C-alpha cells in the first residue's frame, strides 16, 4: 500500500517527463509490468529482483510486480518468460541456468537463443570454504588440495543438488587439481553451512552472502574463489585463476524479454536498466544484501551468454552430465 502511493507519484512524474518532446520516441511501459523470477520468495534471486525492481520503477514510471515462479526448479518460469506477450510488459530475470539447464535437466527446450537480452544485472562467485576448527582449518588452499589429493574421497564436499553451480565448481576443482572429493548433495547453501559446522562435510563452494556471518565469526575459512575480480568482502582470498587453476564458472544474472519483442521496446528496457544500474541506491542495496554488482549492456551480455553456453557445453560433455547417476 505504501508502495502504491510511491509508485503512483513516480508515475505522475514519468507522465510529465513523457510529455516533453525529447523523450517522445523512447518506449516506456504504459501499465504495470510483471517481472518473472524463477525462484520462491526469499533468497538470492528474489532479493536481487526486488531490489532492482524497486529502483527500476523510478525510471520505468510504472509499478513492477515480482512474480515468483519456483515450480519445476525454474523451468516453468523460463518457459513462461520465453512465451510471454511481445508488448514489453512481461520481463524475466534469468541466471546462468538458461544456458546450463539444457545439459542437466531432461526435456528442457530453451537455451541462449530463446530470449532477447536487456542486460546483465549481477554476478556472484563461489568461495571454497572449510570449517575453521575442522581437520583442514589450519591450511591454505594449496595445502588443502595436497591433503585432498593424498586421500581420495576423504574430504566430504557439500553441493546443493545435482549439477548446480556448487557442483560444477566442485567438478572444476577436481579436474584442475586431480583431487577427489566425496560428493554430498545437500538441499541449499544454508544447509551446507550447517553441515560444515556440524562436521558432516569438510568443504563446500558457496556464495559470499551464504557464508559471510560464519567467516566473520571465524567459524568458516575461505580458501579461494572462482571469480575474475577480488572478493568485495575478503580481498585477500586468492582466485583459482591466479593460482593457475581453471576454476572459473562464476554465476551471473540478467534481464530478458521474449526473443521477438520489437527492437524499440527492448532498447527502452535497456535504457531503463542502465539508469537503474547507475543509481547509487541500487549499488548500496546490492552491497548491503551481499549481491555482487556487475552490469553489462545488451550487446556485452549476449557475448557473456554465448561464452557461458560454450563453457557449460564443454564441461558437461566432459563430465558426462546427462548420463551421470553416481
Amino acid at each position, binding site marked *: *500500500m*505504501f*508502495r502504491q502511493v510511491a509508485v503512483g507519484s513516480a508515475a505522475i512524474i514519468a507522465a510529465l517527463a513523457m510529455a516533453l518532446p525529447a523523450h517522445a520516441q523512447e518506449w516506456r511501459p504504459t501499465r504495470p509490468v510483471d517481472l518473472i523470477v524463477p525462484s*520462491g*520468495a*526469499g*533468497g538470492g534471486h*528474489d*532479493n536481487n529482483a*526486488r*531490489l532492482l*525492481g*524497486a529502483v527500476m520503477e523510478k525510471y520505468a514510471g510504472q509499478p513492477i510486480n*515480482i*512474480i*515468483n*515462479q*519456483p*515450480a*519445476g*526448479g525454474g*523451468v*516453468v518460469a523460463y*518457459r513462461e518468460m520465453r512465451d510471454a506477450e511481445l508488448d514489453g510488459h512481461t520481463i524475466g530475470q534469468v541466471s546462468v541456468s538458461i544456458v546450463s539447464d539444457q545439459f*542437466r*535437466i531432461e*526435456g528442457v527446450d530453451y537455451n541462449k537463443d530463446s530470449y532477447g537480452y536487456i542486460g546483465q544485472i549481477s554476478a556472484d562467485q563461489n568461495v571454497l570454504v572449510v570449517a575453521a576448527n575442522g581437520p583442514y582449518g589450519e591450511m591454505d588452499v594449496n595445502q588443502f588440495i595436497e591433503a585432498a589429493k593424498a586421500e581420495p574421497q576423504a574430504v*566430504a564436499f557439500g553441493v546443493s*543438488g*545435482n*549439477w548446480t553451480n556448487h557442483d560444477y565448481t566442485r567438478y572444476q576443482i577436481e579436474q584442475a587439481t586431480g583431487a577427489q572429493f*566425496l560428493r*554430498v*548433495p*545437500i*538441499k541449499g547453501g*544454508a*544447509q551446507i*553451512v*550447517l*553441515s560444515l*559446522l*556440524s*562436521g*558432516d*562435510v569438510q568443504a563446500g563452494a558457496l556464495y559470499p*552472502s551464504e557464508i*559471510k*556471518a*560464519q567467516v*566473520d*565469526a571465524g*567459524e568458516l575459512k575461505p580458501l579461494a574463489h572462482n571469480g575474475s575480480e577480488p572478493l568485495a568482502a575478503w580481498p585477500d582470498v586468492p582466485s583459482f585463476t591466479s593460482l593457475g587453476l581453471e576454476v572459473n564458472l562464476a554465476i551471473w544474472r540478467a534481464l530478458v524479454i521474449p526473443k521477438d519483442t520489437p527492437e524499440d521496446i527492448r532498447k527502452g528496457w535497456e535504457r531503463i536498466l542502465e539508469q537503474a544500474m547507475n543509481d547509487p541506491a541500487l549499488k548500496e*542495496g546490492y552491497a*548491503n*544484501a*551481499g549481491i555482487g554488482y556487475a552490469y553489462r549492456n545488451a550487446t556485452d551480455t549476449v557475448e557473456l551468454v554465448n561464452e557461458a553456453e560454450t563453457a557449460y557445453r564443454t564441461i558437461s560433455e566432459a563430465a558426462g552430465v546427462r548420463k*551421470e*547417476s*553416481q
Partner: protein
Amino acid sequence: MDFASNIALGMSVAITPWNIFYCFVGVTLGTLIGILPGIGPLATMAMLLPATYALEPTSALIMLAGIYYGAQYGGSTSAILLRLPGESSAVVATLDGYAMAQKGKAGVALAIAAIGSLIAGTLGTFVLAAFAPALAKLAITFGAAEYFALMVVGLVAAIVLSSGPILKSLGMLMLGLLFGLVGADINSGIDRFTFGIPELSGGVSFVVVALGLFGITEILSNLEAREKRILVSAKIGRLMPRWSELRQVMPAILRGSGLGSLLGILPGGGVTMAAFASYTMEKRVAADPDRFGKGAPEGLAGPESANNAAAQTSFIPLLTLGIPSNGIMAMMMSAMLIHNVQPGPQIITGAPTLFWGLVASMWIGNLILVILNLPMIGMWVRLLLVPYRLLFPAILLFCCIGLYSVQNNTTDIYLAVICAAIGYVFYKLRCDPVPFLLAFIIGPMLEENFRRATLLSRGDFGALLTRPLTASLLLLAVALLVLAILPKIRRTRKVAFQED
C-alpha cells in the same frame, strides 16, 4: 550483560509507540493471511519488504516477525473451525481442535489455543533471551544421522497420532512417504514420479495435499451429509473455557511449550516436528488416551503451545548463527541485510538494541494477538452459523486463490483436485489421512538425511548407532512404537474374542 538489563533494554525499544504500531500491523496482517488458506506468510513478507526500506531496521523486523507468528496463530483458527490447515504446524489442530468445534466447543477451543499460545510465546521468548547462544551450539551438533533419527521419531508419532486401525494407518503412512518422493531426487537429479510434468519436479507442495486431503474432502463430506438431509446444526455453546478446563490443560501447555522451545532451534525441520511431538507426548501421558481425536482439550493445547514456542525459538539459528533454516527465515535475513545488519554470532554484541528489541517485541506481539483475538472469537464462531450453502463456495474460492498463489501457477489447483478425489475415496474407506499427511511432510527429509548419513559413514549402518544422540533417538522411536502398537493389538484381540 545480565538478563534483566537486557530485557529492560529490549522493552525500552519495543514499547515505543511506533514499534508497538508496527508490531500490531504485523500480527494483524499475519492473523488475516493465516486464516485464509494457502496464502502463506512468505509471500506477504516478500510483498511488504520494499515498504520496510524506509523504516528503522528494528521496526521493519518487528513487523515482519509479527506477520510470521501472527500467521501461525491465524492458521490454527481455520484448522479448528473449518478443518483447513494452511501450515504444516496447523495439521494437528485439525484433530482435537476440529472435534471440539463439532461438539459445539469452538469458542473454548479457540480460547484455549490463544491462551496456550500466549504462555508458549512467553516461555519461548524467555528461552530465546536467556539461552540463545548456548542453544545455537546445540543446534549445530545435529548432523544427518541425528536428523534421520529425529524423522524416525516423527514417523512413529504419525502412527501414534492416528485414530484408525493399525494396518490402515501403516499403509497410509507409507503411501504418504511415497507421495513425498515425487519430484527431482536431490542426489541424482532424476525426476521421480513426475510423468514428465515440469511443475511436479519441485515436488507436490504441502498446501496442495493439505487442502485437498483435508479441507476439500471435508466440504464434500459435509455436503453429502446435507444431501441425506441429516442436519448438522452448528452449535455454539460457551465461548470461554471454565477455570477447571484451564487447569486441566495447563500441564499440557507447559509441556508443549518446553518441547516446542527445544525442537524449534533445530534448523532442519524442528518447527514442523514440534506440534507432532507434543501431541504424541500428550497422548502418552494421558490416563485415558482414547479421548484423543474426539475433542480432548489437551490434544489441542499441547501442540498449539509447542508450535508457537517453536516459531519463537526458530529465530535462534538465524539470529545467532546467521543461518536461515527455512524460507521465512531467509526472508528475515534479507530484511536484515537490506538494512545493513548482518545476522550472526556478532549480532548480540554488535546490534544489541535490535536483537533485544526484536526479542521483546515477540512477547508484546503475542500479547497483542491474544488481546486482539479473544474478543474476535465470538465473531469467528458465528461463521459456523452461516448457512453451509453460502459458506462452502467461499471456502472453495479462497482455497483456489491460495493454491494459485503458492507458485503463481494453476497446476497446483488441478493437483489439489486429484488429492481431493483421493482423499474422498480414503474417507469413504475409513482410512485416516493424518498419517499420510505427516509422512508426506517428513518423507523427503527422512530419505535425504538417511542417504546422506549412509554416504558419510561410507555405507556402515552400524556407525549410525555409535553416535549417542542418534542411538537414543532411535531407541525412543522403538519404545514409542511398541507402546503405541501393543494396546491396539490387545484391543483388536479383545474385540475379536467378543465377536466369537
